[in-house]
């Protein structure tokens, strides 16, 4: 496979944070932004270790970490494959309950409004320098993709996932990963409204700023503002459909 994408990963030992965690963060960003799509096989441990110039132990630990998040599936003697965490459980459940999509979307948005502002508050307290750097880079990339809805959504997804990772609560991270599909649906249905990406990234910037400044309550409020905006957009769209 094309390993160029991995040789761009540069991780330096700076005494802060585990190397395996840093590598996991980089790989996660590639997966969530779909630069590594579902089903893609990762290079072998040895190849990956050469590409990123880190020991095999570090590579193995990073892979294990992502395995635990459901982002990689390791098949013995075959290798590691990009996967998606348990969304299938939510998805199956949603098919089982057989409720109108608008109700499911509203419910998911409500769950999100319960979790994400709190996640953002925790992120302001717990984010590492790398998390903040990743958030910053993601917001910057999104600025260049305001007219490319599909790419924008992929990075939007990445932004919210990095936040959940930065909350340093694995349960919250898994819950956010589990509603990815529904959140993506929300993102794509509101995309037809004017200036949606501009407004979203404006809010992302406010959130990032508050996290950088280590202002938990400001961060919380910035996420509430962001999600209220999304809610308004959803209401506008659903009104049209109904």
């Amino acid at each position, binding site marked *: 496979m094309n390993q160029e994408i991995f040789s761009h990963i540069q991780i330096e030992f700076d005494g802060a944070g585990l190397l395996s965690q840093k590598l996991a963060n980089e790989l996660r960003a590639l997966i969530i932004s779909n630069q590594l799509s579902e089903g893609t096989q990762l290079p072998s441990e040895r190849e990956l270790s050469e590409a990123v110039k880190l020991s095999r132990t570090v590579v193995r630990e990073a892979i294990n970490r992502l*395995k635990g998040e459901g982002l990689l599936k390791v098949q013995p003697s075959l290798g590691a494959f990009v996967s998606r965490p348990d969304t299938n459980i939510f998805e199956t459940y949603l098919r089982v309950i057989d409720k109108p999509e608008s109700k499911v979307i509203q419910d998911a948005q409500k769950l999100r409004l319960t979790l994400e502002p709190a996640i953002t508050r925790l992120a302001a307290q717990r984010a590492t320098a790398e998390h903040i750097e990743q958030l910053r880079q993601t917001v910057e990339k999104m600025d260049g993709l305001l007219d490319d809805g599909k790419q924008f959504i992929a990075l939007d997804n990445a932004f919210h996932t990095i936040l959940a990772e930065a909350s340093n609560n694995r349960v919250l991270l898994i819950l956010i990963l589990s509603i990815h599909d529904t959140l993506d649906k929300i993102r794509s249905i509101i995309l037809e409204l004017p200036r949606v990406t501009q407004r979203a990234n404006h809010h992302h910037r406010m959130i990032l700023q508050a996290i950088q400044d280590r202002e938990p309550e400001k961060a919380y409020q910035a996420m509430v503002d962001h999600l209220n905006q999304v809610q308004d957009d959803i209401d506008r769209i659903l009104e049209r459909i109904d």
Partner: protein
Amino acid sequence: MDFELLSQQVALQIRRLILEGEFTEGQLLPSERDLCRRFNVSRTVIREAINLVKASNMIRVQPGKGALIVKAHENVLESSLLQAGISSPKLYQDLIEARSLLEPVIAGDAAENATAEDIHHLEVEVQNMHGCVANPRQYAIHDNAFHMKLAGATHNHFYPLVLFSIIELLQQSMFEAVKTPGAVDRSLSYHENLLNAVKTRDMRRASDLMNEHIAQASGELISGSPA
């Protein structure tokens, strides 16, 4: 329709019947023969469908007896966490933290949206709790049931699923926590007050009470969690 697709659809129907409570926890699924008749499909299709439901841990197949329904929900957290091999104090902290974010909101939403039937279910659980103050383990089971009923009373499809996943993973430490002296009495009065707040549609009070209850119970849970 091909065999695989047909089994998947039947499996989905069975899961729906479990989720909706027609097939209830603790009981056996109808026999293969009855299921064949009900869904009008072959025995092979039913067997495959049962295998699919089994994979979700909702039923446990007991050779010679049948398929026992062991839980009405699937745990969205379990497989990810199990894969990570996490069962550390940190996991308990994370579970409790997630719970303390969710439940006050759930309590407020339940106070807003509970139907007369929901309130009746909550009353029954409080009654049940009263009936087992001397049996902490039974008490914990009804305590959890109360919280699940509350999540159901929000009428948001995600809350019960998410809360169930968290509660189930905390269950073992709950069994320990309710043994703390005074824990059951304290807990009982919180639940009675919560029920009242829901009945009077006092969202703010329901949410505040839940906050206090979780903060109180968290201390007991942490000491009850495996080190």
